[in-house]
C-alpha cells in the first residue's frame, strides 16, 4: 500500500479516477457512472450538480462501497488518504470487510436525502448514535458515548438534546430529524462527509439553517464535504468547487465562481438560464432545455447531451464519434464538449 502515497497530492483527501459503475439489468447494461474523475481537497466543500439519473448518488455510493447488486464498480480507482496517512484504493477493498467498515462511518460519513426514511424507526436517536460511537471505539463506555452524543446534538443546534437522545424519529419534525442525522454522521468526526441532497425534503427556512450549519461545522471541524444536489442556489452559496454531471459523466468542473460566472458547457449554461431568477422580469420566457434526460441503457460512447443540445455545430461536433475529452480551458476549469479544442478555445 505504501507505494500508493505518491498518487495523491499532499492536500487531497480523495481522488476518483475513471470510475465506472454499471448495473446489469435484463434490458441491458445501465451505465449509471461512466468514467468520472475528480479530486476532493482537504477542508473544502465540493458541490456536485446534476439532474435525476445523472449518476450523482451512485458516485457517492461507490465511494462508500454500498452499491447494491446488480450494480458493480467495473473500472476505475478511488484513492483515499486514511487518517493514519496511508493511501488505499477503496475499490480493492471488500465492501463488508474489516478495513472498509473501519472507514465507513468513522472516516467517511454520509447524510441522506430523506431523514425520516434513513433513521431506524424502532431505535431512539440516542441508541443509534451510541452504537456508532462504541463500534468505532470513539468512546469506551455507554455513559461517555451518551455525553458525547448530547454534545453533538447541541453542536447541530438542537435544543433539549437529552430529551432528543431518548426520542424516536417519528417524534421529531423533518428539520430536527435531519439535524439529528447530521449529528450522527459527524459524531465520529469524519474527515470526509458525503451529503446527498440533505435539504431537498425541507422547507426554505429550515434549509437556510442547515446550510449555515454545514458551513460552520466544516470550518470548525476542518473536514471536506461532497455536497450533492440539483439546487443551483444551494451550491452557489456553499461550495468552493463544483462538478456538473450529465448522464453518468462529468461535463464541466471548476471553481464555483468559474462555473456560475463563466459557464462553458451548453448544458451548464442552459441550466443556469432555465432557473427563474429572483428579481427577474415576470413573463419573460424561461429558456427551458428541450426534451428529457435519456435512459443511459446501452448507450454508445458519444456526447450524452447531443440529443438535447441546441448549440451543436455541424462538422465540429462529431457527437457520434466517442466521448468529448475533458479539456482544461482556463486554470482549474475543465469542460467536456466538442466545441472546445485544446489550442483555440471555443468554436462559435
Amino acid at each position, binding site marked *: 500500500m505504501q507505494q500508493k502515497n505518491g498518487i495523491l497530492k499532499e492536500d487531497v483527501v480523495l481522488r476518483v479516477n475513471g470510475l465506472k459503475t454499471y448495473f446489469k439489468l435484463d434490458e441491458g447494461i445501465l451505465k449509471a457512472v461512466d468514467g468520472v474523475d475528480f479530486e476532493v481537497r482537504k477542508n473544502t466543500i465540493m458541490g456536485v450538480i446534476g439532474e435525476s439519473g445523472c449518476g450523482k448518488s451512485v458516485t457517492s455510493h461507490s465511494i462508500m462501497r454500498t452499491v447494491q447488486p446488480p450494480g458493480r464498480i467495473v473500472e476505475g480507482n478511488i484513492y483515499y488518504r486514511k487518517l493514519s496517512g496511508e493511501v488505499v484504493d477503496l475499490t480493492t477493498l471488500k465492501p463488508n470487510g474489516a478495513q472498509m467498515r473501519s472507514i465507513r462511518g468513522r472516516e467517511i460519513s454520509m447524510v441522506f436525502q430523506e431523514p425520516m426514511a434513513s433513521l431506524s424507526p424502532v431505535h431512539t436517536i440516542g441508541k443509534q448514535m451510541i452504537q456508532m460511537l462504541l463500534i468505532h471505539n470513539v468512546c469506551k463506555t455507554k455513559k461517555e458515548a451518551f455525553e458525547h452524543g448530547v454534545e453533538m446534538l447541541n453542536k447541530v443546534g438542537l435544543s433539549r438534546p437529552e430529551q432528543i437522545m431518548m426520542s424516536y424519529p417519528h417524534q421529531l419534525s423533518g428539520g430536527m430529524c435531519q439535524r439529528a442525522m447530521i449529528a450522527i454522521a459527524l459524531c465520529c468526526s469524519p474527515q470526509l462527509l458525503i451529503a446527498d441532497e440533505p435539504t431537498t425534503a425541507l422547507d426554505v427556512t429550515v434549509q437556510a439553517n442547515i446550510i449555515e450549519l454545514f458551513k460552520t461545522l466544516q470550518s470548525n471541524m476542518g473536514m471536506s464535504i461532497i455536497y450533492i444536489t440539483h439546487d443551483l442556489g444551494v451550491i452557489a452559496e456553499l461550495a468552493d468547487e463544483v462538478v456538473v454531471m450529465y448522464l453518468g459523466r462529468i461535463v464541466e468542473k471548476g471553481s464555483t465562481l468559474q462555473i456560475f460566472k463563466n459557464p462553458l458547457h451548453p448544458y451548464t449554461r442552459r441550466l*443556469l438560464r432555465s432557473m427563474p431568477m429572483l428579481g427577474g422580469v415576470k413573463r419573460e420566457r424561461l429558456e427551458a432545455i428541450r426534451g428529457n434526460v435519456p435512459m443511459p441503457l446501452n448507450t454508445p460512447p458519444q456526447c450524452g447531451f447531443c440529443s438535447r443540445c441546441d448549440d451543436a455545430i455541424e462538422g465540429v461536433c462529431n457527437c457520434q464519434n466517442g466521448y468529448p475529452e475533458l479539456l482544461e480551458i482556463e486554470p482549474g476549469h475543465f469542460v467536456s464538449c466538442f466545441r472546445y479544442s485544446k489550442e483555440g478555445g471555443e468554436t462559435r
Partner: protein
Amino acid sequence: MKNNNQKDVLIDVRNLKKYYPVRSGFFSKEHGTVYALDDVSFFIRENETLGLVGESGCGKSTLGKCLLRAIEPTSGSINFKMPDGNMVDLMQLNKKEMRKVRPYMQMIFQDPYSSLDPRMTIMDIISEPLILNYNISGSELLDRVAGLIQDVGLEVKYLKRYPHAFSGGQRQRIGIARALAVNPRFIVADEPVSALDVSIQAQILNLLNDLQEKYKLTYLFITHNLSVVEYVSDRVAVMYVGKIVELANTRELYDNPLHPYTEALLSAIPVPDPTRKMKRIHLPGEVASPVNLPSGCYFHPRCLYRRKECENERPELREVYPGHFVACHFAEQLSLRGVKDITKN
C-alpha cells in the same frame, strides 16, 4: 376584505375555515382540533395568477382543495363567478349542483407519478372527464383529446400508451391536459413543478404561461419555492399556520414585505450567484403546531420584532396600503428588508 364589487373578481373567499377533530382511544373521543384553515379571506381576479406560499403544514393544499370542495370546508363562503356572470356561493350548493360547477374548476397535482392511474391509457385518462361531463364519443372525442395532447406539447401517437412509459415532465403534461379537457376557467395548481428536475421545471412553467394566455385561465399556484412563485404570480399570498399573513402584488411583496415572516422567508431563498451574499434571518424555534396554537399572533414566539401586544392580541388581515394586506400590529412601524436589500453584492 373589500372590493367585492369589482367586476373582474372570479373567486371571492370569505372567512373560510377548516377544522379537523383530533380523536384517539377506543371510543374515538375528541380531545382537540387541528386548525388547518383559520378564517381565510381573499379574492382572485379573472385571468390572474395568485401565488400561495408557506412552509409545509401551513394549510396551502387544504386551501386549494377546499376551494374546489374536494375537501368539505367547516364554514365560510366561496363565491365563484359562473360563465354567465352570476356569482354563486359554492358552499350553498348540493352535490348535484356542484357537479355542474366542477367543469369550470380543475386541479393539477404535485406528484405526476401517483396522480395518473397506471391501468389507464393516456387516451382513457384525458377522455374520462369529457365523457362524464359532455357525453361525447367517437371521432369527436378523439379530435378533442388529440387537440389537448398537442396543446401540452405531446404527440398524438402517445395516446395508446400507459403512464409508466413517460418521464416525470411528460406525466405532468398529461395531468395538465386532463385538467384542461373540460374547458375550466380556474385551475388550482398544487406544487406542479416541485417534483420535476430544473430543466423540466422551466418547460412546464412556460407551458402553464402559454395556456393561460390561450385559454384565459386563472390560476391559484401553490408552491413552497419562492423563486418560482415570483416568476409566475401577479399577486402572492403568504400563509402561516392556517392563516394568510400577507397578500400583495408580487413586486410589492418581494421589495417591501410588511410581515416579519415574509421577510424571513425571502431571506432564506438560495440565490444561484456566488458573488451575492445573503443576509440571513434565522427564525428561532419550530413552526407552531396547528393543534396547540400560541396565544395572540401565531408568529410571535418566533418573531424578532415582537412586543407585548403580540402575545395577547391576534392581528387581523388589514389593508395597509392599497392592495397590500398584512396581519401584523406593527406593519407600519417596522422597516423590513425586501429581496433587493437582502441580496446586496
